[in-house]
């Protein structure tokens, strides 16, 4: 699993990346009440806003940590956005993306680096 400074996570299996927001992000947001997942077929560059997550406190853009085309969005989040709080780094995934350049994955932070980054916040 890799991480961004904007608190997204990615898991790469073959050329498919699963993307979500980190436990830290879910904790900071508070109770998530709405998630807008990206449409299947849409393509994104790394850093593009690709989903929206809304909590009782604020609405936030979620940025694509890696470039690619959306192949699947998590249908559960529409009916049960609380999944993001309950299971941010597994069941609360946002979308699966066919990645354009797997090398981008290696450029992201590993867990140790992300936790070191969190310690600076």
């Amino acid at each position: 699993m890799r991480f961004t400074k904007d608190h997204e996570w990615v898991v790469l299996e073959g050329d498919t990346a699963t993307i979500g927001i980190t436990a830290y992000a879910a904790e900071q947001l508070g109770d998530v009440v709405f998630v807008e997942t990206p449409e299947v077929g849409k393509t994104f560059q790394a850093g593009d806003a690709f989903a929206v997550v809304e909590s009782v406190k604020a609405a936030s853009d979620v940025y694509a940590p890696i470039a690619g085309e959306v192949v699947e969005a998590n249908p559960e989040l529409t009916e049960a956005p609380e999944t993001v709080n309950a299971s941010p780094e597994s069941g609360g995934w946002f979308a699966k993306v066919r990645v354009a350049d797997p090398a981008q994955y290696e450029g992201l932070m590993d867990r140790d680096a992300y936790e070191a980054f969190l310690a600076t916040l």
Partner: protein
Amino acid sequence: MSMNTVGRPTRPEGAAGPAGFASLTGGRGLLQDEPLIFELGGWDKTGVDLPEPEADASDLAGLVREDLPLPGLSEPEAVRHYVRLSQKNHAIDLALYPLGSCTMKHNPRLNEKAARLAGFADLHPLQPASTIQGALALMDRLAHWLKTLTGMPAVALSPKAGAHGELCGLLCIKAAHEAAGQGHRRKVLVPTSAHGTNPATAAFVGYAVTEIAQTDDGRVDLADLEAKLGPDVAAIMVTNPNTCGLFERDVLEIARLTHAAGAYFYCDGANFNAIVGRVRPGDLGVDAMHINLHKTFSTPHGGGGPGAGPVVLSEALAPFAPAPWVLSAADGFQLLEEPTGDAAQAFGRLCAFHGQMGMFVRAYAYMLSHGSDGLRQVAEDAVLNANYVKARLSDVMSPAFPDGPCMHEALFDDAWLEGTGVTTLDVAKAMIDEGFHPMTMYFPLVVHGAMLIEPTETESKAELDRFCETLRALAAAARQGQAERFKGAPFLAPLRRLDETLAARRPKLAWRPEPATVAPAPSAAE
């Protein structure tokens, strides 16, 4: 001497009541529980006696409703319902209302008297102009004052609130770019501390929104602004004073950079109360700015009435202002509805008629009763009051930007709560128990656990002291480990803490009758 023989006690003996006292009805004295209005009325009663309607040919085909379960209340039932509801709520007429960014100032009753004059209140927007000359004259004078106070050459009066004004301003900017062959500009730059309406408006108009970073002292980061300005940028939207309660001291440079890049400068005028009579936005290089009449010029808002958001425009944007507007001619005032000739570049209309007439009257009454010197004093007192609050609370709370004075609002973060187990939300709820409306919380987003306090010029020093003493006592309680005072708050409100999450996830947006409790509609034959 004559003796009082009616047996009326003159001392409140036994007023405390037995421990654990509960009323027989379950009510709380003068504070009665109140059901929904739909639960009060029903088909079996009606509050008015109307004649049967004449049979009328309907062209609604099969779409005529057979049932309409509206509550049938008598006038006293309806009046009591709303008065009881109002008793459960806070209002600026009850106590200090320090909701930052909202400018909850007193609404002078003189404004109300003027707004109720029949010559203003009983008009119909389709009346001939010759019969509404006084109202048109008032709109013309209001426009004159708004232009004078802002140093801008034009104003569109019709926008009905702040966000509607933002829409008006951005539509003018879009029209101006398109007229100049610059329709390819697709980006609007917005600082991270902006009101949420700014990026929402830009997105609504079809622009892509890019955030501008903020400096450590809470202002627009000029280097970041310069890096993001370019031939694809249509406008920037900057609030001044900004939502951190700070004056953008580089505003002239912001305007210069923006104009050099071919973009327009939209100023969110939500915080105009801090500078009215002191600073003219036109002198700062602003191209468009909405003025929340309901904030700066004291018309009731926040549940008390509608807003009004006239937009002042620079020379460059004035030709694109929406219709209608008031024209002064030798034979009186006219409302220009369909611009032609030189004025034909108007981007269209924002609403069916001319805007919020009742708010125009109240705002104009406020302007006249204060005069230009009085309006300047409004800004000075609003800023002084906020700085007084900041100074009195800075040793027990943590100001987000401790260096230097603030403008009209004092912003604190939640560092002072660290280790107490108490959050910003808990402090806000505890303030309800103390009889104050909470401050704005968790906004602006750039400050952690933000508490934004805007006392306005309304409050006296005595009232500000009472407010500050209360917050100081709450701060002491938090530090002394009395977290339960906060966690369970409000204890004394008609309703305790609501489940915001459930309300957001599973909102009930419409009342539906319980099948068993509503009688069927009487059929037409009965």
